């Protein structure tokens, strides 16, 4: 059987092509996302690691007790920072990083310091 001359085959092939054309005519799906729970994984940005360490130091200085609200805010800001950083939004991550630094400074300022030590 010569397929090329069989009208039935031609019709089927034409229908497949037609459906294929219909399928491929729509906009493709965007790429897969990331960063949704980035705080659960190790950071890849050393600057973020530094801020996290600084927050840990404040934790040891009882920031969770004596600057509770600011500490909670800082934790949330760090989570957001991590997610933005890994979620493909670097500009937003930079802004968030600046905010977090300022928040950590506030916590530093609020915490009691040993005598002779000056506020940062």
């Amino acid at each position, binding site marked *: 059987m010569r397929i090329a001359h069989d*009208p*039935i085959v031609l*019709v*089927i092939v034409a*229908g*497949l092509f*037609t*459906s*294929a054309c*219909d*399928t491929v005519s*729509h906009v493709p*799906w*965007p*790429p*897969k*996302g*990331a*960063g*949704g*729970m*980035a705080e*659960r*994984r190790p950071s890849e940005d050393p600057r973020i690691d530094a801020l996290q360490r600084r927050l840990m130091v404040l934790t040891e200085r009882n920031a969770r007790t004596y*600057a*509770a*609200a*600011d*500490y*909670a805010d800082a934790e*949330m*800001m760090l*989570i*957001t920072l991590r*997610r*933005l950083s*890994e*979620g*493909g*939004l670097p*500009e*937003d991550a930079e*802004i968030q990083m600046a905010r977090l630094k300022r928040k950590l400074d506030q916590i530093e300022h609020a915490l009691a310091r040993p005598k002779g030590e000056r506020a940062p």
Partner: protein
Amino acid sequence: MQRPCAPFAGSGALALAWVCAALIALALGLCGPARAQSAGTGEEVRLRIGDVLAIALPGEPALNKDLNVDRRGRVALPEVGAVDVAGRTLAEASTLIRNALARAYRDLDRLAVTLKDRRLYITVLGYVDKPGEVDLPGDSNVQQAIGAAGGLLQGAQLDRLQVRRGTRTTVFNYKRYLDTGDTSLLPQLQPLDIIFVPASPATGNVQINFDSRTLTEQGDAAESPSAVKVFGEVSRAGSFAYKEGLSVVDMIMRAGGVTRFSSIDQVRVIDGGEPKIFNLRKYLDTGDAKLMPPLKPGATIFIPKQEDEIRRSVRTVYVIGEVARPGSLEAPPDARLVEILANAGGPTRFADTTRVKILKADGSVQQFNLFAYTEGDKKPLPEILPGDAVFVPEKIEASDRPSWLKIPPSRAVEVIGAVQRTGRYEWSDEMTLLDLLGEAGGPTQNGDIAHLQILKARQGGKAISFDLGAFITTGGKISDLPKIEAGDVIRVPSLPDSPVDNKAKWVQLAKEDAIYVMGQVGAPGRYAFNKSMTFMDILTAANGPTSNADLRNVRVSHRNQPGSKVTKVNLAQYFATGDEKLLPRVRTGDVIFVPDRTNKEWFDDPAESTVRVLGAVGKPGRYRFAANMTLLDLLAEAGGPTTDAYQQRIVVVNLGCCREQARVFDLVEFARTGDISVLPVVGPGDTVYVPSSAQSEWKIFVDAMRNILPVISLILAMGG
């Protein structure tokens, strides 16, 4: 016309002169006494200042005139000048005048000099109406001189008038002359005398118009050592001139009589340093003149007050208790109770007139309801006999509540409002506000001591507020307490009992003392608030947030300050962290609003703080997003994907600051692998879209095939 006889000459003329002289001497010897008698004295009078001489020379008009003896004792003669005649007899004066005139006139044999009139030039000074010199007839006396000077003024001291003559002063009692008419009591006036009328010492040192009543009330004796002093309970105490024959009663009458407070049983008469008791009452009852001591010059009479002694007589009735003037009264035997009370000044406002008691002399006691009598009670008035006592008791007062009448308004402070015992309290300046509140039992439980109100009656009703709560809490000096004065009103306002139950009481609270709580709280309303309270205090007073309260979006609107300011309060974070910094500082006038979490409007949450979840989910909509939430949380909150959701292609559109991007999440694959790295980032402002399965590639292909299959079948049928 005759000429002056200067050119006399020759012996014939000399003989004629001798004849003339003899005739003149004869004439003088015959006529002198007759002329002296014409002066009225019958004696040889001597001329004095003020006399008027008449000279007459027939045929010579210039010498037919009256000549006044002037103040220097001289008469002025025409052509020849003055001749001093004062102190000379009329004959001597005639000779002097003739001799003087002889220097210019001739033929003076018929010259006649007579005493025509006598005048008195007197000066009247002192307390007279028109002080000055007066011209009086020659025989005038002091009274005429005073009359010519306009008369005496009120206040003149009549018993000390003076006549001054040269350097000599004669004091005489003009009043005695007025009393007796004895002219010998008056000094004889001479020309140029000065009469001085002194003022009474009673007139004082200030010139005013005295009336006779004022002067006589002070007595008429001035500083006379013989004056009788009358004082004590007399109408017009004073010093009165002593007169022979006056008695003690006369002197008391001159002093206006005794007052009703006098004790006439014990009149004291001090005479010569020896006091004597004069029982005037007994004298009046008996008329026995022996009871009255004699009155001597300089005596002192004292009428004591009746309170100074215990009175007891056959007519005495005693009135005691709450009457205006308690004491003893002299009452007739048939006196009635009302008369007795009226004489005692009547019951005071503290008197209990329903229980007037009559203590009879025999020891029995009668009670009488005077109030009922005034209301028409037919019970007759009790008869009061001498020796009885009328006792008007005070109003009955409860042990814990004295009659308010007992404290006059000038000594009372009123305490009203939320205190244990409101009322009027007697005030003393050594008391403080705390003493007064303690006296009133202190504030009640709902007393708002933070807003004590004091109405200052003596400062025009000025109202001041005082925070007693802060004073007690923080401490302070007692002197810092508001100064309370008698007449003030202190009010302790009440805190609203329950704004929910009785909103009408809200108005009791001044707006500057209130704070407002609205929305999802147990008891929204208007609450009393002060500086010592906090946000949580007022939230708790409103029974706290309800279960629907949106704790993350509590708003506080700050009023009473320039501009507008709203503070957002995340109570959820506060409850999570306990950080007091999250709580705002609220003041009176602020409004606290707790929104409803379940029934919020779109504008309650701005788009920048929410994530839109669209497509094939149970509850598409806007959802508030917290930083620690993930896409999974959002999908769960939105009810999860529906059965026709295309779970392999859940799209997240990120709205970043500087770029936008879309990412796909395969929920099915995530469920199979658990790989969290594929979870896309989501943030506030982003959009999550869950497509339906109709949008899958396979579904699209199948649908397309389904569409072309009928066409293929038709072609095959036609070709077959």
